[in-house]
C-alpha cells in the first residue's frame, strides 16, 4: 500500500514534467532535449531557495528559470537557425555548469531540515499515511493541467497548436510562428523545472545528475497515456500524459519490488517502452502487409 501511494505521489509530481514534454513533443511537434537540463535546473533553484526558508518562492523561481531555459533553446532555434535538437542539447549542456554554479559547485545538496510545501501540509493536515502529500501533489497537478488546458483554448494557444501542425499556414495567417515556438518551449520547460523543484522538495535533495534521461521518461509517460486514451484533443492529451506518468511509476515500483529488475535498469526500461511504442505503427504495417501477401497467395493457389 505504501508502495502504491508512494508511486502515485511520484507519478503526480513527475506528471508535470510529462505535461511539459507533451507540449513540446506533441503539440509543438518539436523534439526538445533541453528537458534533461531544465529538470535539474528546477531542482537546483528549488534546493537553494528552499534552504533559505522560502518553499513557495522556490517553486516560482524554478518555473521562471525553466522558462528562461526553454526560451534560450527557442531563440537559438529561431534566431540563429540552429537545428532544434542541437539547440536543446546546447542549452542542456550549458545548464549543467549553471546548475552546479547554483548549487555552489556541489554535485548534490540536501534540503533535509528545511521547510518544504510537503512538510507544511503534513503539519497542517492531520491525516495518516501521507494522505496530505498525495492530495497536495494531486491538486498541483490538476491546477497545472487546468491552466494549460485553458491556455491552449485561447487564440494564442491555437496559434501554438497550428505552429506544430503547419508552420507556413501560421505565417500566412499573419502570426509570428517564431514567437509561438519560443513561448511553447518556455512553457514546456517551465513545467519540467517545476516538476524538478517538486521532486527536490519531496525527496529532500537536489542532484545535478537527476535530470539525465528525463526526456525519455517523460516521453514514455506520454506514450503510455496515449495507448490508453488514444490521441485526441489537447485537454485529453494533457490528462492522459499525467495518467501515463502515474502508471509508469506504479509499473516501475512493482517491477522493482518483485526484483524483476535492479534499480539501475530504470532508464533502459524507459528507453525500451519508448522504442516499443514508437515501433508500433511500423510493426502494425508489417503485419498488415504479411496478411495481404498471404491472402494474395491463397487466391493464387485457389486459381
Amino acid at each position: 500500500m505504501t508502495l502504491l501511494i508512494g508511486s502515485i505521489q511520484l507519478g503526480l509530481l513527475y506528471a508535470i514534467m510529462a505535461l511539459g514534454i507533451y507540449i513540446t513533443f506533441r503539440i509543438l511537434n518539436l523534439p526538445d532535449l533541453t528537458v534533461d537540463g531544465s529538470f535539474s535546473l528546477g531542482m537546483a533553484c528549488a534546493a537553494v531557495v528552499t534552504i533559505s526558508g522560502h518553499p513557495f518562492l522556490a517553486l516560482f523561481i524554478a518555473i521562471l528559470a525553466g522558462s528562461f531555459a526553454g526560451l534560450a533553446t527557442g531563440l537559438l532555434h529561431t534566431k540563429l537557425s540552429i537545428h532544434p535538437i542541437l539547440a536543446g542539447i546546447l542549452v542542456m549542456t550549458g545548464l549543467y555548469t549553471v546548475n552546479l554554479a547554483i548549487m555552489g559547485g556541489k554535485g548534490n545538496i540536501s534540503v533535509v531540515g528545511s521547510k518544504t510545501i510537503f512538510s507544511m501540509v503534513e503539519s497542517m493536515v492531520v491525516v495518516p499515511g501521507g494522505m496530505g502529500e498525495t492530495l497536495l501533489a494531486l491538486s498541483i497537478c490538476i491546477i497545472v493541467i487546468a491552466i494549460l488546458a485553458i491556455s491552449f483554448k485561447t487564440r494564442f494557444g491555437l496559434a501554438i497548436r497550428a505552429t506544430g501542425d503547419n508552420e507556413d499556414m501560421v505565417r500566412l495567417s499573419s502570426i509570428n510562428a517564431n514567437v509561438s515556438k519560443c513561448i511553447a518551449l518556455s512553457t514546456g520547460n517551465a513545467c519540467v523545472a517545476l516538476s524538478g523543484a517538486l521532486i527536490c522538495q519531496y525527496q529532500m535533495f537536489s542532484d545535478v545528475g537527476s535530470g539525465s534521461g528525463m526526456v525519455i521518461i517523460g516521453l514514455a509517460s506520454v506514450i503510455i497515456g496515449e495507448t490508453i486514451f488514444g490521441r485526441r484533443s489537447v485537454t485529453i492529451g494533457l490528462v492522459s500524459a499525467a495518467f501515463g506518468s502515474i502508471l509508469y511509476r506504479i509499473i516501475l515500483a512493482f517491477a522493482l519490488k518483485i526484483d524483476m529488475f535492479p534499480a539501475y535498469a530504470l532508464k533502459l526500461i524507459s528507453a525500451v517502452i519508448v522504442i516499443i511504442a514508437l515501433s508500433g505503427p511500423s510493426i502494425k504495417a508489417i503485419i498488415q502487409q504479411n496478411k495481404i501477401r498471404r491472402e494474395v497467395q491463397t487466391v493464387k493457389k485457389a486459381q
Partner: protein
Amino acid sequence: MLALTDLIIKLVVNNMLDLINVSKTFYAGTVNERKALNSINLHLDPGDFVTIIGSNGAGKSSVFNAIAGAFYIDSGAILLDNKNISMMADYKRAYDIGRLMQDPMKGTAPSLTIEENLALAYSRKAHKSLFALNKRDSEYFRELLTRLDLGLESRMKTKVGNLSGGQRQAVTLLMCTISLPKLLLLDEHTAALDPATALKILKITTDIVAESRITTMMITHDIKDALALGNRTIMMDEGEIILDIKGEERSKMTIEELLTYYSRERKKQLTDDRILLA
C-alpha cells in the same frame, strides 16, 4: 509634413499595389545565377483582378514571393496601399495579403478542425476574445461555409486532414479572404485538382472576389481562363512583363493572337507544356 503628403497621394492617386523596378537574382555571381525578376514595374488599382500567364520559370511565382515576402528583393520597391513593404517580414505582410498556393496541403493545418483553421486565419481581424472559438465567430464561419455549397457547414468539427483536396482548397480560400485583405494572391490554386473540382473552386473564387472586391492577382496556365476572368491580363517571360492588356484590347484578344504575339515577341514558341490551348 510627411504624413500630409502621404495623405494627398492617397487621395489623389488610386494605388493598391505598386512594384517599382523590382529585381531579384538567385545565386548571383555563381554559375547557377538566375535572374528571376528583371526590373518589374506593375501598378494595380483597387479592385483590379489581374490574371497572369507565362511559361515555366517565367517568374510568375517569384512576383508573388516578392510581394508576400518569401524573400527580400535585391532592388526596387514594393508598395501596398502606398506603404513600402519591401523590407517587412512575411508574416507582417500577411496581415493585408491573402495567399493561396497550388498545393492544397500548404494552406491549412491538418490536425486542427475546419472551425479552428478559420479561427486562426480570422484572428487577424476578429473581435478581441480570450478563447479562439466562440459563438459569434462560429456563426459567421458557418455562414461562410454554407455559401461554399460543399456541405462543410455541418462538418465544422472535422479535422481538415480528413477533407479532400478540393474541400481543403475551398477552406483555404475562405481563410485567405476571411479578414478581407488588401490583396489576394492565387498561385495556380486549382492546378492540383481534378477538372470538375477545379471548376467549382474557380467559381467560388470569382464569386468571393466579386463580392468582396479584394484586389486580386491570379496565376493560371489556362489561357482561356486568363482572358475570361478578371479585368486585366499580364504575360511574363524570363523575369519580365512582356504583355499587359485590359479593356477593349483584352476583350478582343484571342488565344491564337496571344500565342502569336508571344512567339513574335520572344522569337520562340510558348514552351509551357501545361499551357492549355483549348
